[in-house]
């Protein structure tokens, strides 16, 4: 796949369709892959695509699509939802982007691999549905299913919802069990749930990684950076503030979050932040009918829309918001 993509990128650079390519390049270790922009065919030698190319590239398009020329971006199915949502919000200049959809069968979680294979990882090779892991202390073979990212285990779609061109066949929208975990939280007593979230959120170190990676967080000026907003803060100054940071963020992205799961993936403290957003998505589905943010670039999220048929807010809990 990586070769096909490099070939495609080189071809589009060559014929002038695009003047830049957005993809991923390897870091010091095989698993620390980072998003990168390539401007020439020579630079593409560093281009990688593999089991660790989890980062969602759509958010980069907010800035990149407005630069001169056109940029090629490789988007996995789940990334295309974020891309569409950003189009909805007029954050991306569609004419500045050439989207190539690429297939994805789930990305792997290095933390899970480390836990199973031990430290000192030197090399990881994919062999069918298994991963061959070479460490300084020996080698082992792991099933990919055991080390996939949590979000990929409940993948919602193999279908690309936005692209100019596809590599390979397009997939289908999948039956996903992604709300099971939310349901588990819903069944807790308020006290249990409160202590669960206190336990999780108090781990927060306010590194802002979740916000910085989130494709729904593209504000010109984030409220957390704006002294006039009243919630601006560089670090949590009280024990409850870290909770508020995440709750405010969850409200800000409610109805717009496509459930790409980047927030939880990048969290250095492993806080399951996606559960906050997923709860909102579940509530929206139940109260207003199924809605997948980003599925349709023309769609409007029920929570950030006004129609003449809107139910009065006071009765939505009684009979749903579908009238």
């Amino acid at each position, binding site marked *: 796949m990586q070769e096909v993509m490099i070939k495609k990128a080189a071809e589009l650079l060559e014929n002038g369709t695009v003047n830049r390519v957005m993809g991923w390049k390897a870091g010091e270790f095989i698993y620390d892959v980072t998003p990168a922009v390539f401007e020439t065919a020579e630079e593409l030698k560093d281009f990688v695509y593999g089991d660790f190319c989890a980062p969602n590239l759509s958010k980069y398009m907010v800035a990149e699509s407005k630069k001169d020329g056109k940029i090629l971006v490789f988007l996995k199915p789940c990334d295309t939802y974020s891309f569409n949502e950003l189009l909805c919000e007029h954050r991306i200049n569609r004419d500045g982007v050439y989207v190539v959809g690429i297939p994805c069968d789930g990305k792997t979680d290095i933390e899970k691999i480390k836990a199973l294979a031990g430290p000192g990882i030197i090399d990881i090779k994919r062999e069918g549905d298994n991963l061959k892991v070479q460490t300084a202390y020996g080698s082992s073979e792991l099933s990919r299913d055991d080390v996939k990212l949590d979000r990929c285990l409940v993948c919602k779609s193999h279908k690309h919802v936005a692209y100019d061109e596809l590599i390979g066949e397009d997939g289908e929208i999948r039956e996903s069990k992604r709300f099971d975990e939310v349901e588990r939280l819903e069944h807790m007593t308020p006290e249990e749930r409160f202590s669960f979230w206190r336990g999780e959120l108090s781990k927060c170190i306010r590194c802002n990684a979740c916000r910085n990676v989130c494709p729904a967080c593209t504000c010109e000026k984030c409220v957390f950076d704006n002294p006039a907003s*009243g919630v601006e803060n560089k670090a949590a100054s009280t024990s409850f503030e870290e909770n508020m940071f995440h709750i405010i963020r969850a409200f800000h992205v409610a109805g717009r979050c496509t459930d790409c799961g980047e927030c939880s993936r990048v969290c250095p403290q492993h806080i399951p932040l996606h559960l906050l957003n997923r709860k909102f998505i579940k509530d929206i589905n139940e109260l207003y009918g199924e809605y997948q943010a980003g599925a349709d670039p023309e769609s409007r999220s029920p929570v*950030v829309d006004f129609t003449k048929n809107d139910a009065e807010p006071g009765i939505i809990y009684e009979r749903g918001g579908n009238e």
Partner: protein
Amino acid sequence: MQKIGVFVCHCGTNIAATVDVQKVAQTLKNEPGVVFSTDYQYMCSESGQDIIKNAIAEYKLTGVVICSCSPRMHEATFRRAAEKAGLNPYMVEIANIREQCSWIHKEMQTATEKAVILGRAAIAKVHLNAPLTAGESPVTKRALVIGGGIAGIQTALDIADAGFNVDIVEKKPTIGGKMAQIDKTFPTLDCAACILTPKMVDCAQNDKINIYAYSEVEDISGFVGNFSVKIRKKARYVDETKCTGCGLCTEKCPQKNVPNEFNLGFDNRRAIYIPFAQAVPKKATIDPDYCTMLKTGKCGVCSKLCTAGAIDYKQKDQIIEEKYGAIIVATGFEPIKVDKYDEFAYSQSKDVVTSLELERLMNAAGPTKGTLLRPSDGTHPHTIVFVQCVGSRCEDEKGKPYCSKVCCMYTAKHAMLIREKYPDTEVYVFYIDVRTPGKNFDEFYRRAVEQYGVHYIKGMVGKVMPRADGKLEVRASDLLLGKQLHIDADMVVLAVAIEPDKTARPLATMLTASMDTNDFFTEAHPKLRPVESPTAGIFLSGMCQGPKDIPETVAQASAAAAKAIGLLCKDKLTCNPCVAHSDEMMCNGCSLCANVCPYGAITYVDKEFRMPNRTTAIRRVSSVNPAVCQGCGACTVACPSGAMDLSGFSNRQIMSEVDAICK
């Protein structure tokens, strides 16, 4: 730093009985910025207002906090008082310690504590208040009346009488509404048509009144004084300017089997029809669901017959756009569907009818020419049972919780008329209560009982069973005698509940006017502003606001007209300065605010901005039209970056109120 005066109102004992007002005034005196604090029995009274004015002058107040009733009640009063004393009216804040405090608490201590907290929140807000200046907007001197029943007709006539142009939009081909279908009116028993049709003619002949019959309101935008309305004039397939209303086509049309809705389906009309002889406008209408020409392209009889050449099979719906200063809603009512009340056998027997159907059966212009005959076999009925409260005062989901108000009286009327005309007919009325408040109403009811010998029985009918011999077996209980009754009736008449017209709900949404759970329009104040909607410039006339009889409807119609005239008389209206505005530097251009704006007040512009390093960039930013914005604040909540803010209710002001409450 603001210099704030705090004024705590007793509201007689409304507040003072549950809130220690003196303590509230004393405690709030110690809040930062408060330089004067007092309490008084009635702050809204002239002497109360003088206390405020004097304090503003004496202490050079820059902000005023009034702890009193809801701002809906007296905010305007206090703002005016402050303005007279030279203070910007938007430097006044109300802490609602009546509706939100004294009325809902019983204990003095908790209520007092809460009153102090609410006062603190208002003080915290005033610290961030800035003087605001209201703009002005012109008033379009034309009114729209939606609905052409007696309510709409009366309102239109009164507005036209005051010299203003008024348009009536009626969805049926003629104005007249339900009253045109009624036979006689209580308690005077004069003929409904005799008092209604002259008013209909007056409407048609008044050059200030324009009737859009067979039309519906499609879209409403704008605001008080400047509504912009799209009216869909449905295709009649008849050129109204040419049709003379001679009625020849309605006699010769070969399509004879169309149920006549004006007679509630008791007889048939043709596919081209005039609803009734006194229709206004008296123009023919082709029913596209039945017309053979429109359906198959073959026929054309009416077109050949019409000497005026008025038939136009190619006519299309027309959209008319018009501007109005005031809108009066007079959408009226419908009787509820009785299919949920199968115990009364309405669907099983033709001889079980609703009261409105009985009106047609007794009307001289009705299907039986006014002779009361059983719909099933055309014989004269000898025993008639009336069932009251079918769906009214109903506790379960099937019916309506309210009293429909008119049924007791019209049933007394029906019973009396039947006994008068057919003394050999026994009439039974089953009731829960007989409600007869109103001028000459109880006398009327007693006449039915005492003079005309109508059998009033307290109790409900349990079941009506049609028998093979054509009789209706009525099983009921007499609650006063405590026994079961079996009556063999020839007819059963159901006094079904009334409900607002189905078109009212979507209309309310277009008007952004509020409704109650029963879909009746809510008035701005149930006692003091009964004909105004809380939405400025929208007035309520007739049954759309709640059940009422004809005299009440006419009174309310004229009241609504008076309110509308009061608005139309003005040349300019003061705008609300509490409108949204966007901080362009923070705006993402994401359109969320425009998506949630119910008034369409937000548009987007591409604007060039200076960016770092001497560069420029074109960014998509939102722009609010302050004349259209109603200050609802939906956009400020939707805006993720906080670029959108509302003057007078800024995010910072609201947060500081919250902080003051949570302190």
